[in-house]
């Protein structure tokens, strides 16, 4: 057992591709813990912690016939959200597995989320829950069309290499961005950006359900979620956040270069490498400083809360020190384990940082417009999807193909010229 545990270390393949089940399991556990922690953090940011539903609370559904469907709905959403993480790459080998159809699989699995929302509306004698579930389910289906189209545009960009074959594998997509020396966000300048914006709009509209705080004000807005309480409601919310993080990770992988650090190809000198590897440490140092300031002059006067803050700050400071140590000690390549550790920390850091930035934009949007137009007005979201986003994404797809072809023929012409001369 120890042998198979150690034999994988230093491999450049993901555990699934290397056929190592034990490490795949370890990765699954790590991903599960990380996503759970992130979901809890998101929940704390978005709601005051006191409003969390108590897991032991009972909800009013006692009918044996509907109980099954009622139980299965939140679990299904959770499973669909977590199944997507199997192929999301956090680094060149830091994925549970790498399948040939990664992007397709993720789009498919995330579309199963719609089923969970629809099923959560199957409550007898509650017309409001049924109708809102139908509407939000229909809205999700609606925005899948532009999301799928612009994702195809990104996949099309991966085929701009010598062999001319693209890839659907999530790791392959990021490697294509590495090879081409640019994130797909900046590829063919406005086209990639427009595709990314369409994806993010669709993503926000898809993962958007009314926040609990709003739901408490106006129960009719929350719809189907309102029928749930206790553990099932927690599961429903957990699934929602997990799906949100998953979709953000997909956006980061497709357009923001996944685990690649900024300016990876422009500033590739070793000294730049060293400077960029200090970023994780500085981030945690910043967090420590913020927490310390909060401790000293923070809003809450109570003593235990200040002690808590100070403890967390000390923890973050320790992590920062550890990260700095790794960044400095792993500089020389003769210390093999430290060097690879530093590399892996960098991959994880850049991926997590990009996802965090994207998530904070979404959260900001959700809190700024708590009763947003996508969520509230079905006709408006329909108009947005069909009349604005779908034509734009079709145009993006066609333009990517045209510009890519032109690019290719241009390259071939240049090669021909070089051969002639």
């Amino acid at each position: 057992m120890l042998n198979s545990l150690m034999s994988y270390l230093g491999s450049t393949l993901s555990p699934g591709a290397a056929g190592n089940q034990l490490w795949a399991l370890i990765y699954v556990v790590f991903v599960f813990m990380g996503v759970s922690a992130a979901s809890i953090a998101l929940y704390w940011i978005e709601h005051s912690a006191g409003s969390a539903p108590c897991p032991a609370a009972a909800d009013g559904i006692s009918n044996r016939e509907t109980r099954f469907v009622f139980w299965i709905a939140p679990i299904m959403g959770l499973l669909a959200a977590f199944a997507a993480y199997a192929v999301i790459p956090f680094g060149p080998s830091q994925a549970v597995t790498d399948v040939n159809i990664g992007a397709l699989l993720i789009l498919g699995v995330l579309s199963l989320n719609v089923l969970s929302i629809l099923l959560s509306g199957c409550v007898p004698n509650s017309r409001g829950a049924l109708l809102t579930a139908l509407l939000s389910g229909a809205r999700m289906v609606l925005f899948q069309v532009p999301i799928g189209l612009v994702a195809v545009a990104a996949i099309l960009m991966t085929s701009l290499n010598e062999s001319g074959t693209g890839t659907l594998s999530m790791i392959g997509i990021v490697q294509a961005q590495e090879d081409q020396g640019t994130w797909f966000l900046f590829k063919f300048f406005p086209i990639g950006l427009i595709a990314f914006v369409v994806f993010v709009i669709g993503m926000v509209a898809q993962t958007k359900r009314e926040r609990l705080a709003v739901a408490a004000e106006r129960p009719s807005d929350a719809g189907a979620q309102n029928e749930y309480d206790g553990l099932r409601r927690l599961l429903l919310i957990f699934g929602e956040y997990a799906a949100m993080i998953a979709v953000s990770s997909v956006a980061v992988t497709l357009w923001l270069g996944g685990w690649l650090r900024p300016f990876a190809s422009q500033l590739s000198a070793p000294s730049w490498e060293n400077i960029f590897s200090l970023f994780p440490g500085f981030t945690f140092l910043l967090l420590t400083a913020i927490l310390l300031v909060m401790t000293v002059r923070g809003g809450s006067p109570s003593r235990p809360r200040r002690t808590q803050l100070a403890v967390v700050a000390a923890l973050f400071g320790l992590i920062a020190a550890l990260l700095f140590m790794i960044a400095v000690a792993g500089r020389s390549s003769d210390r093999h384990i430290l060097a690879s550790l530093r590399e892996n920390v960098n991959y994880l850091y850049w991926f997590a940082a990009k996802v965090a930035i994207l998530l904070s934009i979404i959260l900001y949007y959700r809190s700024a417009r708590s009763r947003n137009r996508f969520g509230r007005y079905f006709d408006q979201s329909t108009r947005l999807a069909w009349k604005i986003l779908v034509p734009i994404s079709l145009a993006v797809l066609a333009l990517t193909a045209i510009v890519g072809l032109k690019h290719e023929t241009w390259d071939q012409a240049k090669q021909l010229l070089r051969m002639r001369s």
Partner: protein
Amino acid sequence: MTPVATSFFFYLLASATVLGGLLVITCRSAVRSALALIVTLLAVAGLYLMLYASFVAGAEVLVYAGGIMVLFLLAIMFTWTGVSPNEPRFLGVAWIGIPSGCALLAFLIFAFVKGRELFPDRMIALGEESNTQQIASLLYGEPGRTGSYTFAFEIASLLLLVAILGAVVKVSGRGVAGPVSAVESQETRPSPGI
């Protein structure tokens, strides 16, 4: 990568497929039948994966489980009346269902016995890594050569386009007075309980 516990996963997925199929026709509640159908479709996708046809598996999940089942559920929910225990479990069409089922089984057995040489007696080396690329070259062809199925593929996409346009014309109500007035009258009238 060497396959792991292949027969175990095959029998697991196959039994899930059959069980789901049985539940589809025996469940009283339409929603549960739909759920059982989802199980069947996902298990079939798993079987495709075991055959190294990863693209077909992904398309199965995306199109059938994620797309068509959503439409099924939407239709069921729009007409949902809950479950009434008095309703008979089966429609009285066993006299046509059982013979046709037996006929299908007999046909499959006949095909298996007669066409023995079609079925390989050993594992074929399949391109797991290049499966998607192989499908693409069959559908769209390679540089300088059209694929074997390019024409059929284009016809199918044209058919889908016509279907989409037909649906749009049908629901837009332009030139057809019937459906629009029906919708309007339903909005003003309080609808009966769901």
